């Protein structure tokens, strides 16, 4: 053979390292693939049908065989057939796709929450325990993980193809996606929404660890302060506790245990207190005034970074009593006074 062994080795190596199908590394992946193969089957069937018709007729009725054409007006029956059958298949696809969509975008209530901040051109992951990562994400296998994501500048899109999940990361708004990784390993993270010059450099790796490895990793990479503790410090340094003190005479509403409840606003509307509401209420307070309170809160637009907002949200989320808020008010050196959080760094919402 004329192929040089070096070239041959190169070719083999090259082909060996190429892929034709993504790994199925999350619980959702098989479901996505099932729909994919169904649709693939539909496409191939359609193509086959059209191919058979075109080639069949072309051979059967080519001019040599059939010199004179027979004029046919049409057929209502046939028209109805190829209107109704494709419509039925497409509607089936619609239902199937919709079910999958809500499976992917409706996180289970016990999911462990990790925050993602996208900015040109990197991903920052913030674990509740205070572990920060850039362009990488460590998650435990076999446990639903919810990502709460926001962008600091332009549209990004957080995509993990091997998990078959993706969601746009939007400036000014939290979006969420969830997955349950099955196999330990590393997988690609891509930014799939064009976001400027280094768009193709906005990539990272998600590392799926087994539960014990994950605990080890958590312990190794902690920065000492959990998100909630950071939030507490921010809360104090910006003077939030002056109004949101939880006292009966306080000028701001009591924040302890507010997360997850339904609030009535001054305009009479009822809202669910979630991450997005808390963030908005900090930035645009006048649109989120709790009934019975005066609209006196200033806006913090431009004063807190998205990371800071995440800290605050995480803090308020986990605020069960006002004891510490009031403690902080009395002791000026709040951060020293903060006792360490419970071991493991996980918060109440993420208990499996």
């Amino acid at each position, binding site marked *: 053979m004329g192929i040089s062994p070096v070239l041959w080795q190169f070719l083999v190596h090259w082909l060996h390292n190429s892929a034709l199908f993504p790994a199925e590394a999350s619980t959702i992946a098989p479901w996505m693939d099932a729909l994919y193969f169904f649709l693939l089957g539909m496409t191939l069937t359609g193509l086959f049908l*059209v191919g058979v018709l075109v080639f069949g007729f072309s051979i059967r009725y080519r001019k040599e065989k059939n010199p004179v*054409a027979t004029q046919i007006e049409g057929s209502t029956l046939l028209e109805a057939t190829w209107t109704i059958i494709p419509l039925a298949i497409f509607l089936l696809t619609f239902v199937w796709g919709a079910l999958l969509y809500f499976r992917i975008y409706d996180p289970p209530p016990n999911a462990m929450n990790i925050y993602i901040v996208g900015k040109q051109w990197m991903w920052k992951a913030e674990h509740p325990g205070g572990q920060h990562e850039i362009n990488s994400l460590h998650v435990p296998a076999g446990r639903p993980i919810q990502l709460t994501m926001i962008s600091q500048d332009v549209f990004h899109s957080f995509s993990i193809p091997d998990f078959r999940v993706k969601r746009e990361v939007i400036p*000014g708004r939290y979006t969420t996606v969830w997955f349950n990784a099955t196999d330990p390993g590393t997988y690609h993270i891509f930014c799939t929404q064009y976001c400027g010059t280094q768009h193709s450099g906005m990539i990272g790796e998600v590392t799926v660890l087994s539960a014990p490895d994950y605990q080890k990793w958590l312990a190794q990479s902690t920065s000492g302060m959990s998100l909630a503790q950071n939030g507490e410090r921010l809360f104090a340094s910006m003077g939030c506790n002056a109004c949101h003190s939880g006292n009966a005479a306080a000028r701001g509403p009591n924040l302890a245990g507010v997360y997850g409840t339904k609030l009535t606003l001054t305009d009479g509307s009822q809202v669910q207190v979630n991450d997005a509401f808390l963030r908005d209420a900090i930035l645009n307070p006048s649109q989120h005034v709790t009934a019975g309170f005066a609209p006196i809160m200033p806006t913090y637009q431009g004063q807190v970074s998205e990371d800071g907002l995440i800290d605050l949200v995480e803090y308020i989320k986990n605020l069960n009593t006002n004891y510490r808020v009031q403690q902080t008010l009395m002791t000026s050196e709040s951060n020293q006074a903060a006792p360490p959080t419970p071991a493991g760094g996980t918060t109440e919402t993420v208990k499996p």
Partner: protein
Amino acid sequence: MSAHTIVSLPDQSTAKLPKVNYINAEQGILSWLLTGDHKRIAMLYLISITFFFFIGGAFAGLIRFELLTPQSDLVAADTYNKFFTMHGIIMVFLFLVPSVPATIGNFLIPIMVGAKDLAFPKINLLSWYLYVAGGILTLAALVLGGVDTGWTFTTPLSTHYLNTHVLTAATAIFIAGFSSIFTGLNFIVTIHRMRAPGMTWFRMPLFVWSHYAASLLMVLGTPVLAIAIVLVALERIFGIGVFDPAKGGDPLLFQHLFWFYSHPAVYIMILPGMGVISEVISTFSRKRVFGYTAVAFSSVAIALFGFFVWAHHMFIMGVSNYSALVFSLLTMLVAVPSAIKIFNWAFTLQKGSITFETPMLYAFGFMGLFTIGGLTGVFLGSLGMDIHLTETYFIVAHFHFVMVGGMLMAFLAGVHFWWPKMTGRMYPESLSKLAAVTTFIGFNLTFLPQFILGYMGMPRRYAAYPPEYQVLNVLSTAGATVLGVGYMLPLLYLGWSLKYGAIAGNNPWQATGLEWQIQSPPLTENFTETPIIDYEAYDYEWLEKKTKDEVTTVG
């Protein structure tokens, strides 16, 4: 007449081009630049569109060469971003949107309805000048240093984060948009008001029907793009914040306005192509199009439903889940008329008397590729599947299957089919068949691997990519090379045929359309006397009788 072909050319030793026709009716460059004749304007368009097609194609080539290796080593990332932006802007706004309507449509719509010209010849000329102005501005943006917004101008990236020539490109698109509005407006008025006596709606060729539907989209959709672009420009200049979340705006509003045009825009691009396919398939199978009314109404249905589905471009971008549901459902509905068309074309072949000239080969190519392109669109319209596939190479491949595999094939089918009418001369048959086959092979080699890449998750608009995607990218680049050759060939031999092609005569294909009953190339006013239409479209028995009558009269 041979058994393999329906081509019947006049005796080449005696045949001559008609002494007077629209090409030589007036002389001099000014007579072209100031013409009101729809056929001359069509030729002006054809030349300028071809020019921009090859510029856009050159960028496609550069993109593919950059993607030959996983690193961004041919060009830096910012240059690559400018490449794909230029490729997108030029191909979408300066090639695909005007491709068939402004060239073939411009040439044929008045003739097909039996009119002397479009209703507003000067507006038609104006629309060409606007197109050229838009083209020049695009080139200016390119020469001055390029734009890197992507053709979608996503806010707030395009408004606050890029320092390239966004405004120049935006102005170019704004102006080119008006060019397209005027073409559409002219077509609608012509089709409504200028039909010859007896040319009822259901005697019109399907080519006219599909152009009518596309024109509606042009007239109604394009202004919304215009306002979206104006708002982007204002936001960029004054920084007021309609699309800036920091100031209370909603970046998604831009997406809504942009896709309100840009989704119907893909129907603007494909519908005229479908019109071409109807004509070609009917002619080369000597048969009336199966289910004429169904095909006609499916064009209108596509135009109508086309306006209700735009948010399927934003399923993962933060639209509410409820509206995602509604738009996904409507998207499924819009897929049906396309399926109807495909099956009707296939059944047109049944019991026909089929020959395989070049336009027919392109039409077959269209049917195959459009079937794939259309059905992969269902993947993307299906909510859950869209999550994984959108913004990857899958969507790139889908779009190119519809637009390049569909529209460009149809465009080439049309150009070959009506070339004898436009120029009076035939193109070389065997070379053109070679080109058709080359294009088909090159196309599949280029874009089929991209489906696989897309499912593996390779994101679009990446200058560099992980090495495991390289094999498929190399295949794709190889295919692009073949495709490039396939597109260069027609440029060469069609140019050649202008001087050396066989004289075509009035009706080389023995087709029934009104345009084939007049001389080639036609007179400036198309008809010597106003035609009275007393037959249906695609009535081959009528044609046979007419030919027989002529022979008897002459004999």
